[in-house]
């Protein structure tokens, strides 16, 4: 169920973040506050980014911020979403990111419904544009809910 994965409290709209590390912090912090993972998960994401690059920037405007985490740092499968009014750069090429989706996964399949929603929204440029134009956390949350059974 998508409602087990994302809540209204996990969705925010922010003016800007200063760099990609703050972007990671913002999206993971929403998960930490919801009790889904510990602060160490942020270090895991930073480490994997420094090792492989920001491969989780999946479209021009969206980053699916995550790492693999063990039971000690990930307690629960959950998504967060921060929509930025000003874009942030994850690399020279990936410099126009406005949607920060945080994901922590307690196993390899429980977040499937969330991935269906993300694929439905961000695999379609019209849907992505609608998402980028959202003006409230409620709007963001409702878009996730309505796209979860799209496939």
């Amino acid at each position, binding site marked *: 169920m998508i409602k087990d994965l994302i809540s209204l409290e996990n969705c925010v709209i922010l003016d800007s973040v200063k760099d990609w590390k703050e972007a990671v912090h913002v999206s993971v912090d929403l998960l930490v506050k919801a009790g889904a993972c510990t602060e160490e998960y942020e270090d895991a994401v930073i480490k*994997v980014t420094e090792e*492989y*690059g*920001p*491969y*989780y920037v*999946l*479209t021009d405007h969206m980053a*699916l911020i*995550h*790492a*693999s985490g063990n039971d000690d740092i990930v307690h629960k499968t959950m998504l967060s979403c921060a929509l930025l009014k000003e874009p942030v750069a994850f690399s020279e090429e990936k410099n126009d990111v406005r949607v920060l989706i945080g*994901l922590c*996964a307690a196993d*390899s399949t429980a*977040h*499937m419904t969330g*991935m*269906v929603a*993300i*694929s439905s929204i*961000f*695999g379609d440029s019209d849907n992505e544009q609608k998402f980028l134009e959202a003006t409230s956390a409620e709007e963001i949350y409702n878009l996730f809910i309505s796209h979860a059974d799209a*496939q």
Partner: protein
Amino acid sequence: MAKIRKIMCCCGSGLGSSMMVQLNTNEALKKLGVTDCVAEHTSLSEVNVNSADLFVVGKDIYPQLKNYPRVLVLDKIMSKKELLEKLQAAFEMEGDEFHIGV
């Protein structure tokens, strides 16, 4: 025609983009009418050259798999259209070694 019975979608953590690409691969296989092929997903730390006939990765991850025999590289990881076209090309390939999209 290349014999492809198992496709492994691979990303850094094996959770996010690899799962989305797996979902999109299943959809593409249906569109292509391919019924004797399964798609799975995994992480870079678990991927094994013997675990599939074709490996699908985003261009960021490709350097890690450049020595694998059959690799399909996606420029836009979320693009169903690009995946469909490149999968079709993979099934039409002759020979045991090919890298598509590099």
